[in-house]
Each structure stands twice: as C-alpha cells, then as structure tokens.
C-alpha cells in the first residue's frame, strides 16, 4: 500500500498544480465580470468546503455550524477596519486565530457528543452567535457593517470593479486549503482518523491522542473558514448577521464536499465546481420568473446526486479512490 499511496499522493500534487495553473490563466480569456464573479464564488466555496471537510469529512465530526467561524472572520476584519483602521490583512489573521481558539473551546465539551447530538449542538451554537450579533449594537446589530470602498488598493484589499485580485486571492486560499488537506492525509493525524473510522474500537485505545487530533482539526478548519469569511467581507464590502452567520450558509459550505465526496481530497473542489455555477445560473436565468422554479431545479439535483452517488461524484473519476472514500 505504501508505494501506491505515495505514488497517488505525488500524482495528486502534480494534478493540483496543473489545475491551479490552468485556473490562474482562465481570467485572461474570460473577461465577463458576471462569469468572473461566479468563478470567485466557486473558488471561495471550494476553499470553505475543503476546510469544512477537514473536521467533518476526515475527522467525522459533522458540523452544520461553520457559519459561526465564517461570520467571526468576516466580523473581525470588518470591525477592526471600520472602527480602528486596522488593515484587513491583519484582520484576516486575527479573525482566523479567534475562530481557532473558539473552535477548540467549543470542541472540548462538544467532541464528547455523538451523531445527531453533535450536529444539533453545532447548529444551535452558530444560531446563538447569530442572535447575539443581531442584537450587538456596537457591531452594527441588524444594520450590519458597510465597508466604504474608496478606490483600488492592495493594502486595503478593495477593488471597485476588477474581480481579478479577488479571483487570485480565492484561488490562493483554495490551494492552501487543498494543500493543508493533502498534508494532513499523510500526517499522524490522518492515520489516526482513518484508524478510528475503520475500527471504532481502536478509538478507545487511542483515546487521548485522537481527542487532541480532533481539537487540532477543529482549529485548522475554523482558521481557514474564518479567512474565507474575511475574504467575503472584503469581496462584498457589506456584511450583516443574516448573510454571514445564517444556517443556510453552514449548509452551503458542506454541500460541495458532500456532493463531490466527503472525506476525500478532491470532493470539495469537484462539488464546488459543479454546484456553485449551477446555483448562480439557475437563480439568474430562471429565478426572475418569481415562481420558485430555480428552487425546484436546484433541490431536485441535490436529491438526485446525493442518492445516486452517496460516496460523492469523485467516484466517477477514479475507481481506486474507494478506499480513501470509506
């Protein structure tokens, strides 16, 4: 197994490098801002879903409350910038660290919970944060935070019309999230998680180390998700609690990984590439009817894909991945 595993990893890295290089060239040919906007969102969701996949896919702790970390990242950056003039780059790191710490503080009691109890705990924690932000006057409460845009600047990471800087940042974030996952797959943590999944009894004997590795996964996952949130705040230049901490958002982050293949290296990327353009196009081109047809199309596809390919769409591309899917 070792040689083929190592070979596969090397091949994955090469494929990823090629795909990233191709993706980086796409904006040279696609000038339409609407399409570029979809590409930015696709990359952002690929990164978010990849981060989510670390905790929920590899580690098996299904979180439907990742909007919490996303929102914390967005709010930290926006608040630091609008209240104290701190550049978003520092806000990004700050938001990521805050989220990582909170993820560990929450993980400590929550990792004792199993199955649906854990899932519901993640949902209500995120909902609680949403309500607190909705009522927190200093942070803008329901009014949200409008980030003033005064011209193009890399320092302030804001650009009036061009999507390219956002595109390359999102591409970079997606690559980082992918690389972290790639690296984790072959790390000590990765081995423990696989061992626990293959043989739940082994979890008992590995007890403490596994618990610690889960805490680590939560921290890494929350950090990357928060950076995504900071990015979103800069990209949209307006945030409010509903649009960055809503429950829908937690689901949207999980969906690409689930459809693409949960607990796989390529699942989130593949899922995002299919799902996000689909979401955007159905809304833009059939949502204008006001009859809910976009919802019907979108929902049906989710049902069909999740039923037809429970192990995710990556399975279509490689039969050999099955062992990793598990």
């Amino acid at each position, binding site marked *: 197994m070792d040689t083929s595993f190592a070979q596969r990893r090397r091949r994955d890295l090469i494929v990823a490098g090629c795909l990233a290089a191709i993706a980086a060239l796409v904006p040279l040919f696609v000038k339409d801002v609407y399409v570029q906007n979809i590409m930015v969102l696709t990359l952002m969701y690929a990164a978010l879903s990849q981060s989510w996949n670390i905790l929920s896919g590899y580690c098996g702790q299904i979180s439907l409350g990742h909007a919490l970390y996303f929102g914390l990242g967005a709010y930290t950056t926006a608040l630091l910038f609008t209240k104290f003039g701190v550049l978003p780059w520092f806000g990004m790191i700050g938001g990521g660290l805050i989220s990582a710490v909170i993820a560990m503080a929450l993980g400590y009691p929550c990792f004792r919970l199993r199955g649906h109890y854990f899932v519901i705990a993640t949902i209500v924690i995120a909902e609680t944060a949403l309500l607190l932000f909705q009522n927190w006057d200093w942070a803008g409460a329901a*009014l949200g935070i409008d980030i003033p845009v005064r011209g193009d600047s890399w320092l302030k990471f804001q650009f009036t019309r061009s999507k390219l800087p956002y595109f390359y940042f999102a591409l970079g974030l997606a690559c980082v999230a992918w690389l972290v996952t790639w690296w984790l797959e072959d790390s000590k943590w990765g081995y423990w998680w696989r061992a626990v999944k293959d043989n739940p009894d082994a979890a008992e004997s590995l007890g403490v180390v596994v618990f610690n590795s889960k805490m680590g996964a939560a921290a890494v996952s929350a950090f990357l998700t928060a950076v995504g949130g900071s990015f979103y705040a800069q990209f949209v230049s307006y945030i409010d609690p509903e649009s960055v901490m809503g429950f829908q958002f937690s689901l949207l982050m999980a969906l690409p990984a689930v459809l693409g293949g949960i607990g796989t290296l390529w699942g989130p990327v593949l899922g995002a590439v299919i799902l996000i353009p*689909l979401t955007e*196009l159905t809304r833009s081109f*059939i949502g204008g*009817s*006001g009859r809910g047809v976009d919802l019907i199309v979108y929902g049906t596809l989710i049902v069909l894909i999740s039923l037809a390919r429970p192990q995710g769409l990556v399975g279509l591309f490689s039969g050999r991945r099955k062992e990793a899917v598990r």
Partner: protein
Amino acid sequence: MTISRRNVLLGATASAALLPMAARAQTSDVVIGVIYPLSGASAQIGVDAQKSFETAAEIINKKYDFDLPLARGEGLPGLGGAKVRLVFADHQADPQKGRAEAERLITQEKVCAIIGTYQSAVAVTVSQICERYQIPFMSADNSSPSLHRRGLKFYFRPAPHDEMFSAAMFDFFDAMKKKGTKIETLALFHEDTIFGTDSGNAQLKLANERGYKVVADIKYRANSPSLSAEVQQIKAASADVLMPSSYTTDGILLVKTMAELGYKPNAIVAQDAGFSEKALYDAVGDKLEAVISRGSFSLDLAAKRPMVGTINAMFKEKSGKDLNDFSSRQFMALIVMSEAINRAKSVDGDKIREALVATDIPGAQTIMPWKRVKFDDMGQNNDADPVLLQYVGGKFVTIFPPQAAVAEAVWPMK
C-alpha cells in the same frame, strides 16, 4: 422573463459561453434592471412588484391620457420613441446575490439604471455596485434612513424614509393632543432587522425629543413561532399607543396573539410594512378596525385625481390586488427614472444622473400625495410627504396631514 422549457434547460445546462446569447435583445430599447426577492420568504413582495413595474412600463410605452410624465406619448420621445424594457432579477434577500445580480444586469444586460430592492440590506450592496459602475440606482421602497447618508452620487430615493414617516406620526400625536386627546405613553414593537431597528431608533429619538414616554420597547425576532411573551409585555405596559414595525407574518401573529391574550390596545399606529398588506387584513382585518398606518399612498386620492383609480384598476387586473404603499412606490420609481432618462436623451449613466439631479415633477403629476419630486444633494426627495391612513369599514382613508385628509381620525380604536 417568462418561464418556458427553453429557459429551464438553459439555466440548468448552459455553459458560461452560451450566456451572452440568451441575454441579447433588441438594441433600441431602454433597458432598466429591477432587482427584487422573487423566491424565498419575501417572494410575495417581489412578485407583486413585478406587476407594478409592468403596469408602469405599459403606461410609458403605450398611449394613455393621464397627467403623468411619459403617459401621453409612446415610449420615450427624447430617445426617438424608444420603449422601456424591464429585466427582472432575483436577489433572494441576500446582499451578496443582490450585488452579483446588479453586476450581471449592468455588464450583460447593459441596463442603464437599476431599481430595487425591498430589503434595505440588499439596497446597500446594490447601490455600492451601481456607484462603482456609475449607473443610477433608485431605491423604490427601501425606507431605512441610513441608505442615502453614505455619500453615494448615484443613489436616489423619491419616497420618504422612516424618519420622515415617524415624524409624521409624532406630528399627528401633537395635533391630537392639542385637540385634547390623551397621548402620553407609547409602546414600541419592532423586529430585529434593519427595517425594525432603524424604525425603532427613529421613534425612540422622536419620543424623547417631543416628550412622550416610551413604556415598552420590544425588539423581537422576525418570523418567530410565537409572540405571546412579547405581547404579554406590551399588555402589561398598557400604553396609549402601540407602534408596531412588523412585516406581514409577524403582523398577523401579533394581532392574533393580542386578541388571544385579551389585549385591546387603545390605538395602533403602524410603521407600514405588513400593515399595508392585503394578506394581513384578509387574515385579521376584523380585529383592526380603526388601525392607523403610515403610508406614502392612499387610494382615496382617486377622488381628486381620477387617473389614480384607473391605474389602480390596471394593476389590479394583473395582480388581483389594489395598489398599496409598496406597489405605488415601485410604480412611481419607474416613472421618475424614465422621465429622467427621457430628459437625458441618453442611456449614459452620468447623463441620466445629471437629469435625475435636475428632476422636478409636481406632485399633481404623480399618483402620490407628495408635494413634488426633487432630490437633495444626497439623492433624497424631502418633499415626499407621508400620510397617515386609517382602516375604517374595510378600506383605508387618509386622516393626516390636514391638507390630504378626507376624514377625521377615529380615536381610540373600538
């Protein structure tokens, strides 16, 4: 955009390369983008808005004998009779989606102006995008006062905002007090969204300035499964006036819960929203005799201006509803925008903006009780006088200000 199998197939399978084809249309039209929630929790508003905008477009594009800008000719004479064509987009109440749709309308559909958005949070991002592309944005029915104070050059709002609306309510209270009515204590009841928060803040400020005592200031979660705890607190406060800022869903639940808990308020003066929706009166109208709501529109204007009645009939044929506070503002937004485009004689954003800045439409040439339409340097029309309407015998009558009133206020409620 009508739904056809082709659209469905396009949406589901179109690759990015196909998009420009779907978007292409006749070039001689003046294309205006309209962004509303067409699916999700507030889809009803968006669907009604479509009908209202279509009514306005029909009046502009065909000949009608109304004393309304652009009604008498066909299309826009300033642009050689070009027709107004509307492109609708769905923002699903999400600021990010509103922003993406605005960008799509500007870059792909080549719209020369955008009108929207119902939700104030979405107006924030849509107006930002319009500013970036130098395309005028008209806030048809957003009433959050913070919107026009952001230093945007391409932002215009012909209708009143919540501070103007709330000021009218307090003017009314002052006038009633002079007549000897006891109005000392107020209970504020508002949802936890931008609309509710802004409205609650404005009312709290005015109450303090004018010496009214706020005995309950209840902020509640929008679309709650139950409002009994909230109503219990309002009931305990027993104020002279209850002032709700609620959308239809919570409005219905509020009125029902008040009845269930045996609370009959002395008077209700509502911040519009749900309290001007037909659905609310269909549901609980029997409990709302003599409720007062602020508004920017009143059907009894039809007595003075017959065209209001005719236009209402046109809208009703499409939607099955009477024009209300929202649909009337939406209607006027398209008229005001098209009037400016006509004078600009161009679809260039800067030229339209200049024309909008110079807009001066007398109130008589609108379907609203406004003095006139003229924008200040922040893009706000300060001459859009709000009115207070009272629900009496199954319909609304104007009771304030005196120059627009057709009836005396019934006070207290039965």
